[in-house]
């Protein structure tokens, strides 16, 4: 081929926003959010997680949160709640 071909960019032409995971805490201090993504038996899993945590860390403040449905991204008010109230979160995928 002697001539270079010009094509049109099929993408959104947006640079992805670089996001880095938050710094992991050295030790587990509250408040800790336990988020149920609304899959069946997510509560069973998180109840057990909560029980174990309370046994080891009786002073840990735990906040239970729940997505309306696992099929959609978290609604913005839930994300805001997590950001404003929780130092760390554990999110449960179940079934």
């Amino acid at each position: 081929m002697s001539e270079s071909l010009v094509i049109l960019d099929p993408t959104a032409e947006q640079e992805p926003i670089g996001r880095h995971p938050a710094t992991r805490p050295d030790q587990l201090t509250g408040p800790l959010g336990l988020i149920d993504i609304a899959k069946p038996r997510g509560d069973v899993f998180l109840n057990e997680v909560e029980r174990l945590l309370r046994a080891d860390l009786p002073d840990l403040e735990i906040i239970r949160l729940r997505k309306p449905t696992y099929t959609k991204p978290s609604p913005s008010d839930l994300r805001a709640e997590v950001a404003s109230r929780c130092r760390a979160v554990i999110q449960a995928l179940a079934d």
Partner: protein
Amino acid sequence: MSRLPAAGSTAPAFSLGDRTGGQIDLIEVAAPGTLLFFFKHDCDTCDLTAPLVVRLQDALAPSGLRFVGVSQDDPSHTTVFVDRHQLNFSIALDSELHVSDDYGFDAVPALVLLGPDRQVLASYEGFARTDLAGLIEFAAEQCGAETPPIVTESDGLPKMRPGCGSKAHNPDVAQRLAVRRGAAVLSARRVRVPVDDDPFEFLAAQGLGDGLPVVPPTEERVLRMLEGTSRSPSDVVAHIPPNLTPATVEKVAINAVMAGCLPEYLPVVIAAAEAACTDEFNLHGVLATTYFATPVIVVNGPIRDEIDVNCGRNMFGQGFRANATIGRALQLLVRNVGGGRPGDVDMSTLGQPGKFTCCVGEREDLSPWEPLHVERGFSPETSTVTVFAGEAPRAIRDQLSRSARSLGASMGWCLETMAHPKLHRMGEVLLVVSPEHARTFKADGYSKADLRARIQEVTARPLRDLLPNDECQKGTVPVGLPPDWKGPDGQPTEEALARPVPKFKQSSDILIMVGGGTAGKFSAFLGGWASGTMGSMAVTREICR
């Protein structure tokens, strides 16, 4: 279609070189006017016309009428024509064909008589005696001269003769000119494929395909694709998940080119993108799930035949361009514009072949029922797409049933296996009834409502049998049951345990369409995904061109 400027319009200005290195301008036209004569050297109709133009020049040039020939040829071929006819007026070279394109005629010769301000007084292409006579009369009138006797009873001229194709319509040239005309409407970033790189390998290396080669989206191809819609290239069609980035008509067209679509498919792709990017359909979830779901596109209405969407034999299979490429275009949009890629946001455990493409039509002519889109509120004459988050098609085999009741039972029992036989109170499913099976239902006067009721009847089992148990730990879990079925402990009451529970939460969740070849007592169903307002629901949209 010819775009030759008609009388009363303003003709395009131009500046062209001639064979001596000079420049010929048509910017301001002095009174009484100018006659433009477009020609090419190997055109019999140009040969017929040239001597007549020379005679007209002899008659009216003394009155001030300017004559300009515009040649579509290179200088040497132009000279052949000029010498052949002893043309002694200015000859402009339009070898790039930009002026021919601006004047928009289909054939040469093309004659355009201009008055002051480049106002067109008369124009025609090819040869027609009456057009020539009219133009001569206008020209003479414009000059305040007698009409020269060129078209007379004894002139021996034919009544008409078609012209020869304008060189601007040669396929390679037409594409180049289309880009020149239309490139301004394209705003996508231009990407230059390095010289000596194979464009197909280049696109694959950029991660812009689905594993199969894609058609390189050149400006020419995208502009041709955009001819399939009346919508502006800059219109935003939808915000494509997962990144919720806006997809303009132009971006849809680019991805449609890559998928292999024809321009007439573009409105279907646009409608499918609009339908899939609604809250009800929840494309984000459909994409991100570990399940098998993918957008299944069903086309209804007159457009099926117009663009040849297969709704007959092998409709879910290979071999039909519309089916193969419309679904693929939607998938490429999600990948390239939305950023949804397998292993990234697309977390499907196993996937399925329909994630390359899944687009079919309904065989409305062989259906005993009103088609899917009419049931969903559209008129039969409206063309629509319905998107449904579906699994791959699965077989319903019944060559023995001769009654609708029996066949309905077969379908119900097959449908009960959707996802898991013990999972009841399920959401949407797409049932594709083959023409032979449809005939059985028709013979017994079975309506869609009858079929739905039969499916629900044969699949209804006591809740007790559907709960997870030691025999099989999978089943219908109490958490999704209505509150009044459960006791204070959250477990089903004794009464609820005895209650018959059909496969589907509501019979309207069973979407029914007719499709497939006329031979074969096989139907199919495509299981849904998490359905309802908290999952994905089928969405139907009108296809607008």
